[in-house]
């Protein structure tokens, strides 16, 4: 055997195989000292007692978890999920009563909807034959399928509500005023996208509820001025049921297989994508506009400066 492996033969110091006098033994050319091993094992055990001192831990977290201002700041800034935050905020802004937390809750619900939505996509086919059956399957056979569907549904309803409340609070605190004008406009786009997400999702179960809601909704598109075949100046410009905006939305002149597929793509890919992009801009601007607007010191009427034009 040994002859077949020249390197092994060469590396083995065969003369000292019996040991070197202090209890150490050599195996395959590596000296083994029991005391040494014990010491090393002790070091490893010490490490288990203080996991934060290990190299693995330090390579992951990099920052000390103690109460110094430096560690707290670095803990936020060096974490990719937390770095949306500044290191410090207005002492009164962390109370619930100023923001009501509605922007953050909207974002959290969007996150919940993304996760539950992806899980639903594993079971759903956007075709006339399968869509409705997939929902039945989810409700009756898929483990936790019903819970999954319910959570997606109710989180969507809740998000429509929290986004509106967020807008209401931003208005009442005057937070859209200089320098946050543009972020308010980005927010309005987010509101519209939230409503559209909810609306496109309504059709997907392919049941009576969704079918008629979307029929009623898209019938209004017929009446679009200029672009709809029943709208003012539409017919005069050559609009028919087969070339107007409603046709473009539904991929046909009735709510059918193409409409289902289009709703699915808008709902699962296009609108979430746009919403994500606008949210990134929205959060970025919150930071760049100087963080959350308040609670700010009160300004008095006599302190108003004249407009500069």
């Amino acid at each position, binding site marked *: 055997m040994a002859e077949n492996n020249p390197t092994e033969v060469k590396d083995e110091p065969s003369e000292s195989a019996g040991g070197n006098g202090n209890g150490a033994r050599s195996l395959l050319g590596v000296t083994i000292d029991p005391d040494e091993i014990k010491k090393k094992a002790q070091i490893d055990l010490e490490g288990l007692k203080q996991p934060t001192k290990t190299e693995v831990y330090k390579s992951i977290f990099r920052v000390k978890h103690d109460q110094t201002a430096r560690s707290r700041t670095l803990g936020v800034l060096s974490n990719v999920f937390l770095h949306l*935050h500044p290191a410090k905020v207005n002492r009164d802004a962390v109370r619930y009563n100023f923001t009501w*937390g509605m922007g953050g809750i909207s974002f959290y619900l969007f996150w919940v909807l993304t996760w539950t939505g992806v899980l639903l996509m594993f079971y759903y086919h956007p075709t006339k034959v399968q869509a409705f059956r997939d929902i039945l399957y989810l409700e009756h056979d898929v483990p936790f399928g019903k819970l999954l*569907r*319910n959570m997606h549904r109710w989180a969507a*309803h809740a998000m429509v509500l929290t986004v509106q409340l967020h807008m209401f609070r931003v208005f009442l605190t005057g937070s859209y005023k200089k320098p946050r*004008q543009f972020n308010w406009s980005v927010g309005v786009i987010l509101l519209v996208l939230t409503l559209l997400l909810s609306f496109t999702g309504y059709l997907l179960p392919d049941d009576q509820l969704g079918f*008629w809601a979307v029929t009623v909704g898209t019938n*209004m598109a017929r009446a679009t001025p200029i672009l709809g075949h029943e709208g003012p100046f539409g017919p005069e410009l050559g609009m028919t049921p087969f070339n107007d905006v409603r046709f473009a939305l539904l991929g046909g002149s009735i709510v059918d297989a193409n409409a289902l597929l289009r709703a699915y793509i808008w709902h699962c890919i296009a609108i979430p994508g746009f919403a994500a992009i606008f949210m990134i801009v929205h959060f970025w601007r919150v930071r760049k506009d100087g963080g959350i607007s308040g609670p700010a010191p009160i300004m008095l009427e006599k302190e108003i400066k004249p407009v500069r034009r």
Partner: protein
Amino acid sequence: MDWHQLWTIVSLPDNIPIVGMLFIIPFFTWYALRQARANDRLVERLENDPDMAKTHHRKVQPFKKGWVREVAVWPYLLRMEFLAAIIVTIILMVWSITLDAPLEEPANPSLTMNPSKAPWYFLGLQEMLVYFDPWIAGVVMPTLIIIGLIVIPYIDANPLGNGYYTYKQRRFAIWAFIFGFIILWCSMIVIGTLIRGPGWMWFWPGMTWDHNRLIFEINRDLHEIVGITSQPWIGIFGGLVVGGFMVVAGYACHRIITATEFSRKILGRMSLLQYAIMQGLLIIMLALPVKMAARLLFRIKYVWVTPWFNV
């Protein structure tokens, strides 16, 4: 009285958000106005006491010399966010375990649902279909709502109330928004959900939804009431009525905008374009309740009939 009908509507799982809204919106309105009142009292004290205004930290929240003005995000903000996430998750879990998302029969184009309702957040728009033709209710109005919201920061020339709750310093803005958001948007959603039944007919809470109910009401156009019968005149008359409404509404808005010395001062800061856009949006917003009243109280269908469109 048929309270069972009301219960049937209210207990529909998809209507839970609206029932929630009935409590949540008034609660947060009260919560905001309460903080606004506290700030307004401080404004008053500071205005009456210029010395105090020089030294005061200008917030109702307590502050003492030597306190830091900013706190670390970790732990003070992040723990709130974490807590909020846990609470929302629990609410969502309980909600999802106790109530099932609706699923009707498979879609069937030959079997119309009656009433056939949009999702709750669009019921305001669907309710508007009663008062306006689809091109206004379904296309023009939503577009104007979106544009109107987007331009708010650019037409509000009042620099006060930036970053704190206040009522006194922003009376007009707050009334305008509450009018649009709560009185028009939210209450039309509530009407669409709780009041409208089969055939989109008006059923008061406690009335049974009668699918065979017929209402013999004759809606007339305004020009018929006045007695104009031939076309160019019908169109011209309607145009004059609509134009007249705009002038009156614009004048009324102008009176409100210039009612106090403070609001005149703010008006002085606005450019002509800002003023024109604000007036346009306010007039159109006012047109909704006016048309609703014309329809519900006087059974008027159209006020302006032309060969191309009707208003």
